């Protein structure tokens, strides 16, 4: 079995390595992602999933390896570079400024300004109301700091921030961790909708059922290394769990 996609990948991470002190958090890992595809990144806590995607989102600088976008090698030195390549990230920690309201967080670093260059608060709130109306119609707390929101509401603000700016590449690091079943279902529908729009999505997810339902391919990591990659349609959930738990590669993996 091999990668069913052909043509130029949207993203190609080649041989990425990064170490903290003596710990090789990511050790020569390669992953690719095609438009309209959802690639799951799986593995135990500490496997290096978040660290790998942070090299793509600009939060960390890789020690070695290459990042290619649409076949061209790019340098991503900070989060601004990633945003410039239409890469949006929902971090595991959500990365919200707790003292600011939803609109300020959604537009953080990309505030809407009026013709005088001043921040246009009302327009930002209006836009935030629009997108939240689409993602989480129950959300009404627009004028309080996000510290006053529930875990699920905070998560929806972080998701809205990633979705609002027309990403081509979306990184979702455990996006449903703080959500109840209903909200989790809404995120699943959102992922399918974005996929249909042609976005490429890296999805870090622990729930194997969600992986089987949402992902086209799954890449498993263990101790910073790549165990293998499978086409989700070709394997059972036990095959994937075997890869995660024991690092055992089923015959279909590549």
């Amino acid at each position: 079995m091999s990668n069913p996609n052909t043509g130029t990948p949207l993203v190609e991470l080649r041989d990425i390595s990064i170490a903290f002190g003596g710990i090789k958090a990511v050790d020569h890992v390669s992953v690719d992602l095609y438009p309209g595809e959802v690639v799951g990144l799986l593995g135990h806590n500490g496997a290096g999933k978040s660290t790998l995607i942070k090299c793509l989102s600009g939060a960390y600088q890789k020690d070695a390896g290459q990042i290619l976008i649409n076949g061209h090698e790019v340098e991503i030195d900070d989060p601004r570079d990633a945003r410039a390549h239409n890469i949006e990230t929902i971090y595991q920690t959500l990365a919200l400024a707790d003292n600011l309201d939803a609109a300020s967080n959604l537009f953080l670093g990309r505030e809407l300004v009026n013709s005088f260059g001043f921040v246009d608060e009302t327009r930002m709130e209006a836009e935030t109301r629009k997108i939240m109306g689409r993602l989480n119609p129950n959300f009404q707390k627009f004028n309080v700091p996000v510290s006053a929101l529930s875990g699920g509401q905070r998560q929806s603000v972080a998701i809205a921030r990633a979705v609002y700016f027309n990403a081509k590449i979306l990184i979702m690091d455990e996006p449903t961790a703080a959500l109840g079943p209903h909200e989790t279902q809404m995120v699943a529908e959102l992922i399918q909708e974005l996929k249909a729009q042609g976005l490429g999505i890296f999805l870090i997810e622990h729930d194997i059922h969600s992986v089987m339902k949402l992902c086209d391919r799954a890449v498993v990591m263990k101790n910073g290394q790549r165990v293998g990659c499978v086409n989700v349609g070709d394997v059972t959930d036990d095959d994937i769990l075997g890869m995660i738990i024991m690092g055992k590669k089923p015959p279909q993996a590549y």
Partner: protein
Amino acid sequence: MSDTPHSPQTNSKTESAFGRFLRATEIDPRLLGMLGALLLIWVGFHAYGALVLGEGSFLTPRNLWNLSVQTASIGIMATGMVLVIITRNIDLSVGSIVGVVGMYAGLLQVEWLPPVLGLGHPAIWILAVVFGIALGAVIGALQGTLIAYLAIPSFIVTLGGLMLWRGMAFLASSGRTISPVDSTFALLGGGPYGAIGATGSWIVCALAAAGVIWMMIRGRAARKLHGFALRPIWAEYFVGGLSCGVIIIATLVVNAYPWPKGILKDYYAKLGQEVPEGAFIAHGFAYPVLIMALVVLAMTVLMTRTRFGRYVFAIGGNPEAAALSGINTRAMTVKIFMLMGALAGVAAVIASARLNSATNALGDLDELMVIAAAVVGGTSLAGGVGTIYGAIIGALVLVSLQTGMVLIGFGDGSYRKIVIGLALVLAVYLDIIYRKRIK
């Protein structure tokens, strides 16, 4: 807590009338608390004077005018300290920056420029002001760079600065006092000639009131455009009326404080006239107070209407999130300390102009008053929270305590220190209680 539709009227059943009032007017209860404390202090000092000493002298045009002038340099620096503290830093060096800037600006206008340009040349005061602000900014940027790029804690860098700049100030003049400063420069410190008079003050009053009303109308129009909930119209009138009322009362007060006899004589003598019967020339707003007002306006716009201000709050709330949002947090730190330094430069200009000299003690211990003013004004040392108007009210509270103690005969420095020390701790304690209660 469940989601509730945004409307100023929610929970009206369980809310007190006062709570409803605050919600409708969107007045921050802490602002009311601070203003209440300030009024209490003012009335307290006045009442003590009236009852115990037989003469209340606090709530007089003369004292309030002096209070406004005395607050200027601390208040101006406190607005900058708000940004420093919001981003979880501290600047202990501002008093010493005042000292070194005052000294070099003094040397420039008294010893270096006059031989070149001629004594009293009109460019001298401008050059001295520009130089002073620039020197403060450079010192601030230098400290900010050490903090941001070498990751030395701000407490240490500015503690070093506290000693270093004070030492530099002494060395610059070998310990001499530089005076008198340029006569135009001296006006920036206030005094009878350093104020804009009655007519000018009414013009300022009209401009300020018009500005308030214009901003309220624009804000309401913008919310209407997007279909957001509006404040009830009575609340708009109340807030607008209150703001304009405060501006008008301040104008009436400064215009009720006349020039003293000696100045009147001097003034009319220059015109070649006798002092007319019943002559009354009002001080009006002093230049340093107008400078403070401009600084407050600019800093408020900066903090509430610009990206820079957003980033200051974001860095204070979650530095990591700010960096992940593409904010260059290091460059921001340098800019914030540079701004703080520049404001210390402005304060140095005002303080040396007011003294009509640059001394070694200029700005001594100002850092403590400035930090205390920001904190009393509601800036949280945990970061992420603070307002410019709060810092100004904080400065007013502290300077009121200081001058009020003198006025009622406790002028001895030790009483003042005790009272201000207690006030600082009490203010922070009240703030902690308030924050717990709203949680």
